[in-house]
């Protein structure tokens, strides 16, 4: 009894010292889904850090800002849509280093009209989706010196009026979000386009659509359409594919694009340079944000994914504007953690529109609060990030140490158990692999471990098994002979 008391006191002390995040009250729930798709609460992977409004950085209030971008030098670019300007912040987001309201267009002073999206290429070119002017403006810093603070922006080119026989007569080019790859190809999410993402070559010529989403019709809809009259069909809604909402690009040139999936199964795509979707899904085949969405009303239904950010080493995060959640996946499509929420406390959102990642911290832009909300990683979050990153690099044995540390903080995390189990499997320790893979509820890899274990046992005991079979057959033969002899003797 006394031992137990000591033990519990020690454990209490140990845990109260090593888990500082438990003491921080976060204004949202952090959770993940287990094998049975039940919600399991977890320690907070990220905690709110700062709220940055236009006033605190000395740029005057933002008005309906709609996009964030990080430059190669770490500077933060905000598309301040309502004020028709681009605001540039220093990497720490403490002060404004520049505001672009006008630029020199062939000798005339030109302005933006509601720029909804922007991105910065690795060559430090600034691409702006000048939405209401129906064009994309590409600017660059004239003196090309990244360290100074004077912004002498020079026009590089303007992309407008794309030409193609694919467009019908009343086609309007309304760019919303965009990203650019290392070769200078521009990927644009246009408003109201169901064909997919528009691709422009480095000269600004339209080359085609990529990532077209296929329409999904349920058998129920087919049934109703088959019994509807022509007039009813004309008045009913059209079944058209959903639009893309946000794009990002990874250093290898793969485009991550989000869309609003009405069934909550696949809200993000990873398009290779030929436009094929090559994203990987986890065990539950789901990339749609929340799995449980039985709630009714404003907060019910599948997640509305509005933006994606590729972070590093295969990890990407999705932003949900319906419940204000941030979903983080690894390169295998496993959900790592979920956090964030809507509300009016510091660290919650009202209308999140864009997400970015800068140096270990997640920044979310809110178009109603007109603020950038940043989140700092906790011990729990950083351990998961590192473990997943190590696995991405192929360094499983080092990842195992991190997974063990994660398990101390959250013993329920199936991902950690699977990570450890897979490492044991590679090392050839089938018994331990079985133990952890069963805890992690991974049928496929558990079965591999189990089959190896079973074969091992069979191989070791093969002599005994065969001897046993021979002995039994011999015994049966002898028994039958004796019985025959007995019957003969009886008769």
């Amino acid at each position, binding site marked *: 009894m006394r031992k137990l008391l000591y033990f519990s006191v020690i454990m209490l002390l140990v845990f109260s010292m090593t888990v500082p995040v438990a003491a921080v009250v976060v204004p949202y729930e952090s959770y993940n889904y287990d094998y*049975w798709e*039940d919600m399991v609460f977890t320690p907070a992977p990220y905690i709110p850090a700062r709220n940055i409004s236009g006033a605190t950085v000395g740029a005057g209030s933002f008005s309906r800002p709609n996009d964030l971008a990080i430059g190669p030098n770490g500077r933060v670019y905000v598309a301040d849509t309502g004020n028709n300007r681009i605001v540039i912040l220093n990497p720490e987001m403490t002060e404004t280093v520049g505001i672009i309201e006008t630029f020199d267009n062939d000798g005339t002073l030109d302005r933006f009209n509601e720029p909804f999206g922007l991105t910065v290429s690795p060559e430090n070119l600034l691409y702006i989706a000048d939405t209401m002017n129906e064009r994309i403006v590409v600017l660059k810093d004239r003196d090309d010196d990244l360290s100074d603070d004077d912004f002498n922006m020079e026009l590089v080119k303007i992309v407008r009026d794309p030409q193609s026989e694919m467009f019908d007569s009343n086609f309007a080019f309304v760019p919303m979000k965009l990203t650019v790859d290392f070769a200078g190809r521009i990927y644009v999410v246009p408003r109201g386009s169901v064909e997919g993402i528009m691709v422009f070559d480095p000269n600004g010529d339209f080359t085609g659509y990529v990532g077209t989403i296929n329409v999904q019709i349920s058998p129920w809809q087919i049934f109703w359409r088959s019994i509807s009259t022509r007039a009813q069909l004309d008045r009913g809604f059209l079944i058209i594919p959903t639009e893309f909402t946000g794009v990002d690009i990874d250093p290898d040139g793969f485009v991550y694009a989000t869309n609003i999936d009405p069934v909550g199964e696949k809200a993000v795509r990873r398009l290779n340079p030929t436009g094929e979707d090559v994203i990987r899904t986890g065990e539950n085949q789901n990339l749609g944000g929340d799995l449980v969405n039985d709630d009714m009303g404003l907060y019910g239904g599948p997640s509305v994914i509005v933006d994606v950010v590729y972070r590093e080493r295969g990890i990407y995060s999705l932003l949900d504007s319906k419940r204000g959640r941030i979903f983080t996946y690894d390169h295998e499509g496993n959900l790592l953690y979920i956090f964030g929420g809507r509300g009016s406390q510091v660290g919650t959102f009202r209308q999140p529109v864009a997400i970015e990642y800068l140096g270990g911290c997640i920044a979310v832009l809110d178009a109603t609060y007109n603020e950038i909300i940043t989140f700092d990683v906790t011990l729990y979050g950083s351990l998961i990030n590192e473990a997943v990153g190590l696995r991405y690099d192929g360094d499983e044995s080092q990842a195992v140490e991190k997974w063990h540390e994660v398990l101390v903080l959250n013993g329920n995390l199936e991902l950690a158990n699977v990570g450890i189990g897979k490492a044991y499997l590679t090392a050839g320790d089938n018994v331990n692999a079985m133990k952890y893979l*069963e805890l992690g509820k991974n*049928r496929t890899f*558990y*079965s591999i471990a*189990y*089959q190896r274990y*079973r074969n091992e046992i069979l191989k070791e005991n093969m002599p005994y098994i065969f001897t046993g079979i021979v002995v039994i057959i011999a015994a049966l033969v002898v028994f039958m002979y004796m019985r025959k002899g007995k019957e003969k003797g009886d008769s």
Partner: protein
Amino acid sequence: MTKYFSKDCLYYFRRVMTNPIDSFYEIRYRDYGSVPIALICVAIFGLTFTINRIFAHFVVNDVNPLTVNGLTEMRVVFLMFFLFCVGNWSITCLMNGEGRLKDIMTVVGYSLVPLIVILIPVTLISHVIAAGEEVFYYFAIAIGIGWSAILVLLGIMTVHNYSLAKTLITLFLTFVSMFILIFIALLMYSLINQLYVFLYSVYTELVFRF
């Protein structure tokens, strides 16, 4: 007591599984078998069903074992059993069935024996199979379910002295009547609840007044 639990009744299982038509005939017309033993069969089925749901290995088990409550499972099994028997009895009464409620219960209870027998070994088997070998598990379960279903069909057919077609029709109607029974039960529950609330409010009114 001895009448219900005689040796004959216990050994009767074997006869039910091998010679179903003959033995069901004897249940109806020679008073073989007994209701208490049938109820025990249902209880044991509830038990093995729970065991299978909890202890079947996760390679084949989609149920979260922590959410399984043995008593709830037992209650559901018994509820379905009684619903089926009462539903079948009320339909066959109207359709010239010769079986009594006692016969229906005995037949259905005894028919569950193949499932009872198969569920425990199948649960054990599930611990020595890997993904890709689930076929053995599901095939064994399918055999158990199929055997029990055939026994129930033959039993209902025999005790009521029906043709196969008529049995199938009555089985369909039985399921309809089960739904009606549930509906009436819910209706009764809500009506009685309203009556209770009304009387309780009258009572509180009186108490506050005097």
